[in-house]
């Protein structure tokens, strides 16, 4: 074959077509990485000393000690679980009217604006930051945690619920409306059946998230298993810490499986 076919082929660039830009971006990335790595000051002797502690933690994880701190662990767990359930119930209950109000297709403009800004505030702030404020206002303990999680639930559920309502089939709402139904009847007959399964699914999902978060906000004093974990770690009791982490992982796994089962069952 002496036909004039090329003997070289290189893959044409897919995203950035201009060669100069490509080089600039690549060089930029390398410079950034060098600079970023430069900011990481590592105290190697401290890390080296830490290895032994790390080993103890891994051992603690493999041979967890549930028994010696069981009272603290069970107290923390009860606080976390009750906090999770109550905050999810209250959060969802508040989310439903806000979610309906934040749906552009069924709410008047002024209500829509108010509800959307509540959602935005709730979503913008991290749970832990809200917890700091609420602990400062309401004092230490699970009540502040409950308020934090309820508030965070509102941002999550109301946003997704509102988006769902905005995506319902307009034809069904139209049909109900054309029968002369009132606003409440439209919501009840046209909107509710379409979004109800999703709402239940989202609530279960949020229950799972709230439990995970309840393990965190304890660090800033909002009660729950997080507080117990914080204490265990600061006392260097890695076997108790390992036990707590395994309990958290176990509960999350159970929650995930049972909620996917429950969702299948409800649909």
């Amino acid at each position: 074959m002496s036909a004039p076919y090329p003997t070289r082929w290189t893959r044409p660039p897919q995203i950035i077509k201009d060669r100069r830009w490509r080089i600039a971006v690549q060089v930029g990335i390398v410079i950034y990485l060098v600079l970023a790595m430069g900011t990481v000051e590592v105290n190697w002797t401290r890390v080296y000393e830490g290895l032994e502690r790390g080993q103890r933690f891994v051992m603690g994880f493999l041979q967890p000690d549930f028994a010696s701190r069981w009272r603290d662990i069970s107290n923390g767990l009860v606080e976390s679980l009750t906090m999770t359930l109550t905050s999810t119930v209250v959060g969802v209950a508040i989310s439903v009217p806000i979610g309906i109000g934040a749906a552009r297709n069924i709410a008047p403009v002024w209500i829509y604006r108010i509800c959307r800004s509540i959602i935005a505030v709730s979503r913008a702030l991290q749970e832990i930051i809200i917890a700091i404020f609420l602990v400062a206002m309401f004092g230490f303990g699970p009540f502040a945690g409950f308020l934090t999680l309820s508030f965070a639930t509102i941002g999550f559920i109301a946003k997704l619920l509102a988006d769902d309502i905005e995506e319902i089939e307009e034809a069904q709402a139209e049909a109900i409306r054309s029968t002369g139904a009132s606003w409440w009847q439209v919501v009840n007959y046209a909107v509710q059946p379409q979004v109800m399964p999703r709402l239940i699914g989202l609530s279960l999902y949020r229950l799972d998230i709230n439990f995970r978060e309840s393990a965190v906000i304890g660090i800033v004093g909002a009660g729950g298993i997080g507080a117990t974990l914080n204490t265990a770690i600061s006392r260097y009791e890695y076997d108790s810490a390992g036990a707590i982490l395994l309990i958290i992982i176990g509960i999350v796994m159970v929650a995930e499986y049972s909620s996917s089962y429950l969702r299948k069952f409800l649909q």
Partner: protein
Amino acid sequence: MTDVTHHSQVWTYRTPRARLLLWGGWFALVALFVYCWQVMTAGTMWVFVWDAPKQAADIGGRMLPPRWGYLGELMGPLWDTINIATLGTLGGVIMAVPVAFLAARNTSPSLLVLRPIALFIIVASRSINALIWALLLVAIIGPGLLAGIIAIALRSIGFIGKLLYEAIEETDARQIEAITATGASGAQVLSYGIVPQVLPTFWGITVFRWDINIRESAILGLVGAGGLGLKLEASLNTLAWSQISVILLLILGTVVVSEWVSSKVRHAII
């Protein structure tokens, strides 16, 4: 019922059994809620709760006006926060990719041993918040950026691993079959048949996680893992509420910008 033309006198929405179940379910939920509420609030000091509005007004008063002069001091920690997020995402990706290939049913080398292990790594990483990882790592290797980066990386494994392995399982089997039929080796099937199919999803997931990591790394300093959180912790300890409001506004601004960047990049890729 022998009378075939029989109709129930009253039309009902549900069968009696379903109705009973439904009411039973609601009743159980309410009872559980009341019980949990009582357990939870058993130790609550209601004095503090009733006092809360006064406290809120007090804190609000101290937060305003924000001490804008403090902003200059925050630029270093902000840079640290971004670095923690980026390097942490990078580390997370490097560890998550092999885990995802081990966890995907169609690429896992052993369904009985390695796949369950990979799935456990994913669940473990997902159930434990970055802040808890940081808490542990600060105790183990000492405070600083490194603890933050590793914490973010460990938390990212589960997120990226889960979404990536689902994408791998959803690849088009025919394209893979066609590459196999050419006599390609296992590694070649992977790089020609599977990788091109999941690559856009992979970049999307990574940028999305980077965006989340920016939020997370902003607070890691609360437990000593560097970044803006360190300043937040320091200001909280001295009850310098006017500085706290500056920090919060800066975090909000960063989050908005990172969200914008990530959505731009995702649109460019997909």
